[in-house]
């Protein structure tokens, strides 16, 4: 399990995942764009949650994307959870 994971690394990884889902194109958003504004609804929330679980061995609820509505905030939350 990655114990020291930097928020910026998580931001990069999350950005890559969001682009892989095919809904948004690179360069059309920043780490501060609310995910809901990108049209990332429940199917994307569940997929992202699954990818976070697989990548960081964390158990997270899909509502994590509401608690941390941007990539920057989500990355911060993941880093914190991974460090616990």
């Amino acid at each position: 399990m990655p114990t020291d994971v930097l928020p910026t690394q998580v931001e990069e990884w999350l950005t890559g995942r969001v682009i892989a889902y095919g809904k948004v194109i690179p360069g059309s958003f920043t780490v501060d764009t609310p995910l809901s504004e990108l049209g990332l609804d429940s199917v994307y929330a569940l997929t992202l949650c699954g990818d976070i679980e697989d990548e960081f061995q964390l158990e997270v609820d899909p509502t994590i994307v509401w608690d941390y509505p941007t990539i920057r905030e989500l990355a911060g939350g993941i880093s914190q959870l991974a460090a616990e």
Partner: protein
Amino acid sequence: MPRSSYRYLPRGRRESLHLRAGRSGSHRDWTSRQLVEILGPDAATAASLSGRRRNEYITARAWLREIVRGRLGLPWHGFEVVPRGEKPRLRRSSLDVSIAHSDDHLLVGVSAHGLLGVDLELVAPVFDQPALARRACSPAELEALSRLPASARRERLAQLWTIKESYAKALGTGLAMDFTAFEAADLQRRSDVRRILTPRGRDRRLLQAVAWIDGV
């Protein structure tokens, strides 16, 4: 009126199921008076939204109002304010409503008897993701999916998801429901399920599902 194609899908018993599908169309300016008329106490939520998301939010609710007032001839008092993720709820009404959108495609429904959930999804690369398949499919569905040619898997997973999501939305459980614990094909046989509809529109990339179930 937003410019959009629309139609009512097959109606159920006692004409108690009313649906409308279409596109939200170009952005329009809503006066604050219109917002209060359409949304009621929920007008504050629209104020926190912007751009396309705001247009879809309001248009979907304006369509529900047209069904309730125009088609059912019932009074309209807007929406209750509900926490994010909860099913939209009409104020001072026993009607059940459901809303789905993907980009500017909208699907809304009203049920006079029983609970209603609608979902629509554009078939997109997200449905290729193993992380989603593992969380959206039962073991048997996952096995069947793996036997499909790669080119057919995306649409199949989107179909399974759309049906299960419509059922979860009818119950109001949303993302709290474990989609691996049941199969989309079994839903129609459940005693609480009145009907599962999967209407296809002209756009083949768009999948729609409607779950109509008994009220609790």
